[in-house]
């Protein structure tokens, strides 16, 4: 087994494609280059306990797409918040079009032609595109015909294809993103900051976005593109700046650099890969799910003629579901011992409900769940956990941790009835603390002690604690929802290792992830979830992320054959109609 380096090591600057930045960031790219749209110099920003940005220097040429890459937590977002006026740097200067500026709030940045498209869209769902665009910018072109004309003008000029009267709630993710971009352009932005714009898109939508970006560039606008997806960066960027641990470590030319070189520069060490080497799949079924159906509660979409069948909904705090949309529709699958089943899908297509139904946090309307031969459909959460279900939640702050409690109490969470945490109803803090220390040691949780609160750890270390906790009770079946989201690369490799290790010993894993590389690399079997149904399956050995992406939009179903254009076997139902 490879020893995982605990600390990123500096990478020897051997690659010709990179110019390592001089200390003060004097980075003359080209003597005859056009004027710089944005120039950041010696930017330093400290937060309590950490230096988020340290002596950062970036020069963005006008009319280019400039990519800013770095792993999670490297300081990209902080830097952009500084440029957008949301935060003030402790040191350093910002120059826009060669003129030194200082922003106190985003308003001042917007006035200087800086616009930001946030990773999480800030749109009002129940308003139209037009209303959303003019909201807060009423003074620019009014709210009527003039505004509409301006929107169409911008939309046509950059090929955004926006319909001003469409309701936001009817739009897909990619369309919403274009509305966000239009909103920024409407306010007169000359430099656009896009914060991880591709995180929510499937590969086809990413290509469309890149076409839009090229249009913007052709019209003389400047785009700053934040990402950690290297393939995309090489495709679209004109210049690349790499940030590692809060400081700029180099620039690269996308024409000559490779993803591998970029990754090593970004991480400062060799890239881990999620690949699962040998198959450990057995024929013993561990988890069997049949016809699992969950209806949305509260909303009535279609008037039902008969009263829906409901249990005396004693076990749910909410109102009983009444004839709602189906969030999970006849889901069925089997996971064998030693198998990792990956579920691909755009977020919000039923993954959360699937997890909650498997954990017992919501009561399914129909279906049977069998764990290791025992019917657990009606079992409460605690019994399921005791029965061997481990749970790495998708939102660790909401479902996995007590943030203001010490680590050793967090080690008890979810396993309070099990040893070593308690004996016969009475807690055993001494044993729990001792075991917490073991987890901290074995899973490399970086902490000064087990009495600090969970909130004071970084995301990766919090996640390692959760993984360690769940693995400590010898689960038979593990639900891993986005196990490496928001986790630094070092921790990522460790978490992958932990899952692989347990799989070798016969653990069945349900892996849900938005990271397609992780899904393909780690899974033994792949299924695609779309609008609450499992619409397709694929072999991770042959499938490409692009093909998987197609299925995720509902455009393909059935068994996905690799490298076959007519792969989408229509399975004769409504999925095709619903596809965008």
């Amino acid at each position, binding site marked *: *087994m490879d*020893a*995982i380096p*605990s*600390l990123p090591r500096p990478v020897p600057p051997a690659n010709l494609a990179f110019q390592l930045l001089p200390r003060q960031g004097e980075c003359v790219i080209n003597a005859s280059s056009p004027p710089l749209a944005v120039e950041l110099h010696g930017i330093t920003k400290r937060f*309590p*306990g*950490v230096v988020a940005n340290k002596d950062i220097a970036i020069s963005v040429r006008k009319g280019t797409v400039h990519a800013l890459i770095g792993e999670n937590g490297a300081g990209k977002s902080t830097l952009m918040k500084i440029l957008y006026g949301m935060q003030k740097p402790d040191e350093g200067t910002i120059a826009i079009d060669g003129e030194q500026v200082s922003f106190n709030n985003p308003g001042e940045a917007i006035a200087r032609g800086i616009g930001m498209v946030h990773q999480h869209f800030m749109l009002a769902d129940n308003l139209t595109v037009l209303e959303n665009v003019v909201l807060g910018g009423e003074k620019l072109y009014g709210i009527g015909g003039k505004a509409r004309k301006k929107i169409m003008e911008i939309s046509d000029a950059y090929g955004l294809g926006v319909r001003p009267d469409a309701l936001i709630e009817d739009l897909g993710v990619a369309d919403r993103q274009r509305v966000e971009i239009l909103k920024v352009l409407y306010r007169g932005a000359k430099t656009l900051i896009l914060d991880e714009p591709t995180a929510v898109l499937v590969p086809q939508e990413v290509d469309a976005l890149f076409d839009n970006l090229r249009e913007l560039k052709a019209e003389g606008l400047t785009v700053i593109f934040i990402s950690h997806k290297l393939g995309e960066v090489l495709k679209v960027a004109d210049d690349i700046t790499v940030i590692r641990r809060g400081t700029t470590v180099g620039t690269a030319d996308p024409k000559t650099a490779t993803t591998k070189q970029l990754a090593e520069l970004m991480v400062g060490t060799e890239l881990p890969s999620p690949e699962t080497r040998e198959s450990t799949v057995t024929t013993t079924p561990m988890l069997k799910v049949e016809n699992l159906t969950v209806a949305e509660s509260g909303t009535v979409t279609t008037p039902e003629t008969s009263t829906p069948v409901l249990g005396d909904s*004693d*076990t749910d*705090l*909410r109102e009983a579901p009444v004839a709602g949309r189906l969030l999970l529709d006849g889901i069925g699958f089997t996971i064998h011992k030693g198998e990792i089943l990956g579920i691909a899908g755009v977020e919000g297509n039923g993954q959360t409900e699937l997890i909650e139904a498997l*954990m017992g*946090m919501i009561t399914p309307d129909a279906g049977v769940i069998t764990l290791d031969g025992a019917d657990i459909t009606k079992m*409460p*959460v*605690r019994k*399921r*956990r005791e029965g061997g279900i481990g*749970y790495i939640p998708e939102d660790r702050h*909401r*479902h*996995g*941790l*007590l*943030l*203001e409690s010490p680590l050793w109490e967090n080690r008890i*969470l*979810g*396993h*309070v*009835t099990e040893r070593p945490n*308690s004996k016969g*109803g*009475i*807690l055993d*803090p001494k044993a729990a603390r001792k075991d917490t*220390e073991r987890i*901290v*040691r*074995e*899973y*490399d*949780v*970086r*902490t*000064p*002690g*087990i*009495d*600090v*609160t969970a*909130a*004071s*750890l970084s995301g990766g270390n919090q996640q390692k604690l959760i993984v*360690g906790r769940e693995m400590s009770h010898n689960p038979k079946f593990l639900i891993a929802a986005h196990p490496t989201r928001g986790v630094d690369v070092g921790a990522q490799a*460790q978490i992958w*290792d*932990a899952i692989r*290790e347990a799989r070798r010993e016969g653990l069945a894993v349900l892996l849900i992830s938005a990271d397609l590389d992780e899904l393909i690399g780690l899974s033994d079997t792949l299924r695609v979830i779309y609008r609450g149904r499992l619409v397709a399956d694929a072999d991770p050995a042959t499938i490409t992320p692009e093909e998987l992406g197609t299925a995720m939009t509902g455009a393909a179903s059935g068994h996905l054959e690799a490298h076959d254009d007519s792969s989408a076997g229509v399975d004769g139902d409504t999925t095709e109609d619903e596809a965008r």
Partner: protein
Amino acid sequence: MKKFDKDRLLLAAAGPVLALVSALVLTMIVLAASGVDPIDPLRIMIEQAGYEDIQVLIINQAGIYFLAALAVAIGFRMNLFNIGVDGQYRLAAMVSAVVGASVSLPGPLHVLLIVLVAMATGAFWSGIAGVLKARRGVSEVVSTIMLNAIATSLIAWLILPKNLGVQPAGSNDLTTGDIPESGWFPALSLSGGDIYGFTFVAFVLGVVYWFVLNRTRFGFDLRASGASESAAQASGVEPKKMIMTAMLISGAVAGLTGMPLLLGESHTYNLSFPLGVGFTGITVALLGRNNPIGIFFSAFLIAFIDKASAGLDTEGYAKEIGTIMQGLIVIAVVVSYELVRRYGIRRQQQKVGEELAAGHALKTDNKEVAA
């Protein structure tokens, strides 16, 4: 990690100290602003506390507040705000007084019966709010406030002579009849007066409260629910069951609040049974940070303000100065605790960051992962 423990202790003390000091300063400002000498009333209050009979009053009152505050604190620990302790306590005192007066049992059994009836009544009354919350999602704040009002009317009706009440000859008062001596709780006689025996039961309950909360599975589930409802649910706590259980226990303890007075002095429920004890309990629980030791001291402090300020009248000052002090303490407590809490979190993150940067992490680099 001794350092973090010491830190936490310091921070835990910082909140109350900050709150009390600022409340004291604010009181003096209020006094000065209303044209009263800001120091003299405080001096008189401290002087009052020197008398033995006042000391006994303070101890007895502190026991009552301690129970009320425990009832509130149980709810607080899982983010339930039981404002209905006052109604639960009065109804429980009334019903148990009626039962106590109507039966005749050998000593300890009689007392036990009264106590159990009081707990059951309190639990029943708070349980209504529990059911509403668990089944219908009704905020317990709203329902318990309303139940307080309903309890007041219900008691007023029940205590009418045509129902359960008794009007002693030659008196305007209405009572529930006298509990026979077998239902009295023995007291500790001092030269300043009698200390209710039930006061000691109250303090023992504080120990039980600590043990249940910190050393049992149930207590862990309860605290987890209070810290993060979603995380608790994912950990296997059934939220509805937890709401019900916490409400019932809180109500049962609230039912005990009237016991020191009923079993130790009045031996009947009458119109002059104190009102608002449950609300003072909220102040005490807040000031004591839901911690039994904290509640113990704050119960004494509030009881001191209560009993010592009563003597201000005779010296030409308004005794409502005590009420103003209590009010200011509530405000100061809420503000200063939140300030200290935020500071604490920030400070710890900073410290952890520093420690890790300095390479003092628990582990060393030569360990392999999860092997």
